[in-house]
């Protein structure tokens, strides 16, 4: 059975005031369906950049990202946006919810973009919020929710178009330990339901909850801790 996601020899080099910065150097990995992978490493090691490349948010300088038989890194901008909308769920450290919308409406947004009708998306958004434990917070705006609750809304938003892959960048980075535990438990549930998860994290507890860990140091990926 072919893996859900395959990255081959990814390189990403930035130009910083005329000097090349090698953020990712020759990273290769595969993510099977229902896998829970943790990318661990110090700040500035290239974890977020790798996650962006895997999501199709950024293009590699060289190398390929393939998902479902499609070479994502070769897709034009509009097709990559559509790919991210339907195939990948993205979660950020700072949640990035729309502050003027309610939790329910925030979860609806990717579905509205995908063309899902209002009745269906409202029902699906409510169902997802119940699933992440926020059934009693549907009409609350982000400013009225705690950090952990906002991250749960962000996870529900990421899952709204039922993507097979969830990518999370430091999802517990802004949360206290107890709230972080809730997010870890939620990831475990999602994985059990068949969603593949890749997290970039400093949080060793979260990394321990994953099926496997990959270490990233100076843009290089390794199966072993440095």
């Amino acid at each position: 059975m072919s893996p859900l996601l395959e990255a081959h020899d990814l390189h990403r080099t930035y130009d910083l005031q005329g000097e090349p910065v090698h953020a990712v150097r020759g990273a290769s990995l595969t993510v099977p369906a229902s896998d829970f992978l943790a990318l661990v490493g110090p700040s500035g090691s290239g974890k977020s950049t790798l996650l962006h490349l895997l999501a199709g948010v950024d293009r590699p300088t060289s190398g390929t990202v393939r998902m479902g038989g499609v070479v994502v890194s070769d897709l034009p901008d509009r097709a990559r946006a559509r790919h991210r909308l339907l195939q990948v769920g993205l979660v950020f450290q700072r949640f990035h919810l729309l502050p003027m919308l309610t939790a329910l409406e925030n979860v609806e947004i990717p579905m509205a973009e995908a063309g899902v009708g209002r009745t269906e998306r409202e029902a699906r958004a409510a169902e997802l919020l119940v699933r992440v434990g926020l059934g009693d917070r549907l009409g609350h705006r982000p400013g009225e929710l705690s950090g952990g609750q906002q991250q749960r809304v962000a996870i529900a938003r990421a899952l709204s178009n039922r993507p097979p892959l969830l990518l999370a960048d430091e999802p517990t980075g802004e949360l206290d330990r107890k709230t972080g535990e809730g997010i870890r438990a939620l990831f475990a549930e999602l994985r059990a339901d068949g969603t593949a998860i890749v997290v970039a994290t400093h949080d060793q507890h979260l990394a321990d909850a994953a099926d496997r860990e990959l270490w990233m140091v100076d843009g290089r990926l390794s199966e072993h801790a440095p």
Partner: protein
Amino acid sequence: MIVRCALRELTRHPLRTLLAVAGVAVAGAMLVDMLMLSNGLQTSFRELLESAGYEVRVSPAGTLPLDTEATIRDADALIERLREESGVAGVAPVLAANLSMHGELERSVFALGVDPDAQGVFRMLSGRPPGPGEVVLGPEGAGGDTLSLAAFGTLGAVAGTTPRALRVTGRARFLYVSESEVPVALELGTLQAITGRRDRVSFVMVAATPGTDPDALAARLAERFPEVRIVSIGELVEQAEQRLSYFRQLAFILGSVSLIVAALLIGTIAAVSISDRYGTIAAARAIGISRRSILLTLLLESLAQSAAAVAVGLTLGLVTARQLERILSDFPGLPEAVRFFVPDARILGIAAAGILGIAALAALIPAYRVTRMPIATTLHREEP
């Protein structure tokens, strides 16, 4: 969803939205006023001339009606010849003169001598038009059954300057008289006798028969009567437009300035509002929201804000125009019916479209830029 996002974003910062709406509304009000000013005098002048029901004016050579104190001599013969011309439905001679009013009040009046059966310089409000030895007064001012009038100044030397008692027959609204003047109307022969200007008139109004082109009639009559000046209302309006072209230029410059101010204000507010949300917008693009959706949302925000400003601005512009009209209508020598600011649906539409168009353009630049920002770099910058 796009509409909801745009409107909610505006209500999220009520003070910012309110100040932006107020700023654009003031610029919009100024634009409305300038557009009305650029058009108002011409429009009201044309309406005033057309309201008399006579489309052609005959005045002494080299002058325009009431432009100078010059008069047309041998007026009776001219009027008879004009009446015989084809395409002429009616002829209304007018003699204008300043008279001195004697009685309880000593004051100057502006007298118009007319043919009571054919005149287009006043509308009766009460009573009946003046016959020989009679007078019609303006809407307000001295009352009583009789009025004593005489020619004054240099005309005092000519015949008929003895104060003459005239019977008051009614009151009328005068079309071509300014608020500062006290108008009265007399039968033409009576005024000619008082002023010693027998067989003279200041100007003659000519009505065209139905289906006759007034411009063509005026041109034909001008050829037939070279001793006088004959122009149509259209030509008079054109000449007035030339004389008042500085109003248009002033209005154009100030109107353009108000549009530029509105554009800068909207552009600045849009840029500030968007730069506050770089991280959220980059995240929205990262989760697959298209550039088009984001651009539409941001443009809609600006348009909704500007639409509110347009509603306030148009109202404010109309209110301001009324106040300015009051000030400018005191300008000496202007007929009461002439208006500087004439409200017009077309002008309001142009102002609204102008502000909304400029709002879309001003917001387009920062909105377009943010959708072109590299997502990953922006997220790196926004995330800790």
